[in-house]
């Protein structure tokens, strides 16, 4: 299939449809509204379910209901709307039903603004809702990757009966790029729904989708089962990309390492090339799964490089995970912009130079 010029949000919506999404429940919020608009037109065309809910609280609980019935289902929102969904995330996680949610992040906290930001890293990775759980978090840095990750999101959700969050900042949602859409997959037939799903207790005992377990022992058993599943996900599903100035695998020679995801992960690819012109050997690691986090690979690289600079569109969130991975093997510094300001190569390069001076100076002492 040929590439076409397509807007990020429309691409996300169309990729979900082609991945076999049977139902979408959502609520308008900038900068993700085009996901809802595109899908509101396309789902009826495909004979599938679209419903504009009365709130994000309702959206996520509609998703929960459809997922419990065994359908491939998603919702989409942006930062303040995602906060409203967190109750539902926790129930979905404990009930172990598959569902996909996208967060096209904007500036915050509070009502914030509608500029691109990454301030929801903590929320997505560390505090998706009450209780002990994680969702798989996939972060795209361009429109093509957004398309590919949306398809992956549905497959991972089904494979592990878990909640998968796709995150991008508003700039990826709003920009147009040439990209290739996947072929249309057939929608799962009602009779193909999973054996645990609520499909009617015909010739079998009733199925129950539930997150209530009275008694500490019962609840601990459920937690242990969930943790076992999360460990399996962490083992199998870590994804990231590495970049060097020549686009090859010269990251093995890098003295300094950049760690950045999403839009900044893309900007940092330019920074790597610009740094080489200034005589610095810099590599970039761009996490694609924010959870599970590529900690092992970062720990390996921390043995090799002299310092790490983490760059984010927030006040310093992922850098905590980088530090946890590095365990003081090398200095980890942070540069970030908040409120919807996008850091540019000219902002980031001086930070790299500072780091270079710090770590080289340290060796000379």
């Amino acid at each position, binding site marked *: 299939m040929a590439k076409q010029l397509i807007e990020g949000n429309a691409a996300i919506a169309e990729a979900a449809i082609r991945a076999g999404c*049977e*139902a979408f*429940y959502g609520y308008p919020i900038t900068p993700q509204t085009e996901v809802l608009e595109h899908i509101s037109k396309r789902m009826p065309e495909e004979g599938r*379910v679209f*419903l504009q*809910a*009365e*709130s994000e*609280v*309702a*959206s996520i*609980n*509609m*998703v*929960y*209901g*459809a*997922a*419990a*019935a065994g*359908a491939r*289902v998603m919702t989409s929102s942006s930062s303040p709307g995602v906060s409203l969904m967190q*109750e*539902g995330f926790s*129930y979905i996680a404990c*009930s172990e039903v598959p569902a996909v949610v996208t967060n096209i992040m904007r500036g915050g906290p509070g009502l914030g603004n509608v500029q691109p930001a990454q301030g929801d890293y903590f929320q997505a990775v560390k505090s998706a809702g009450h209780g002990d759980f994680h969702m798989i978090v996939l972060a795209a840095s361009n429109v093509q990757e957004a398309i590919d990750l949306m398809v992956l999101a549905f497959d991972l959700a089904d494979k592990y009966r878990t909640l998968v969050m796709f995150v991008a900042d508003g700039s990826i949602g709003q920009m147009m790029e040439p990209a290739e859409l996947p072929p249309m997959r057939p929608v799962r037939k*009602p009779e193909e729904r999973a054996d645990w799903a*609520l*499909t*009617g*207790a*015909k*010739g079998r005992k*009733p*199925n*129950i*989708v*539930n*997150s*209530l377990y009275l008694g500490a022992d019962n609840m601990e058993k459920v937690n242990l089962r969930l943790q076992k599943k999360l460990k399996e996900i962490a083992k199998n599903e870590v994804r990231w990309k590495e970049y060097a100035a020549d686009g090859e695998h010269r990251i093995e020679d890098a003295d300094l390492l950049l760690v950045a995801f999403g839009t900044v992960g893309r900007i940092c690819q330019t920074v790597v090339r610009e740094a080489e012109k200034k005589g610095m050997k810099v590599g970039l690691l761009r996490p694609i799964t924010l959870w599970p986090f590529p900690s092992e690979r970062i720990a390996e690289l921390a043995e090799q490089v002299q310092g790490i600079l983490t760059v984010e569109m927030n006040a310093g969130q992922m850098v905590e995970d980088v530090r946890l991975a590095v365990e003081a093997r090398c200095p980890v510094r942070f540069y970030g912009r908040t409120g919807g300001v996008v850091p540019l190569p000219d902002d980031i390069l001086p930070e790299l130079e500072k780091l270079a001076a710090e770590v080289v100076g340290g060796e000379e002492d």
Partner: protein
Amino acid sequence: MTKIEIPEDMELVYEYPESLTQAHTHYCPGCTHGTIHRLIAEVLDELGVREKTLGIAPVGCSVLAYNYFNVDMAEAAHGRAPAMATGMKRVSPDKVVFTYQGDGDLASIGIAEIVYAANRGEMFTTIFVNNAIYGMTGGQMAPTTLPGQVTTSSPTGRDVETAGFPIHMAELLGRLPGAAYITRQAVLDVRGIRRTKKAIKTAFRAQLEGLGFSMVEIISTCSTNWHMEPVEALEWAEEHMVSYYPLGDTKVSDGLQAMMKRK
């Protein structure tokens, strides 16, 4: 469940509904939840829909309803059952979907979800148990607690000046165009129980005919948190609640009227 053969000279006049499990309920002595569970189960049996019914339990005293109905069940977050039912029914239009909710769940924390589900005319049925109190958390003021009624969070009686007024859900939802059937019944005596069963059956039939949203509000008792003997609670509800919450239909859509004339 084992079927018992009935001798030829005897007639089966009463049996355990197939749509109930054999589990012992956790409800307090004198609680009306058990009665209402049984009525729903009898209706599902009589309509022959048990094997295609999906139920949604609330948060509240009936949170464990998924253990008592012999149908596929989900357990919703507090107040969100109508949203869950919406999502479920839209992807399973051939199934019979119902929510079972209490007054705190439906009329307080979940009021947006029930109003919008009713207004969209979602094709599911809600059984709304109104006993004017938060039972599971130990007897706090509910949205339907009567003026002056003493609860653990209105210790000097519900003061409408500060706490606002009890909410009439059947009247509120009865005004919405998406609703096919909205009624208020009571399970305080045999006649009321029979009428309630009839209303539940009408509500499910409205769903099966695709006429729109249906809800049966049921005036119930909570002798434990009202601090009354079960019979005294029934009498108190008859005297105080039924006068505040009048029984009867608040919405019978044209489509439903036509259906009732046909049958």
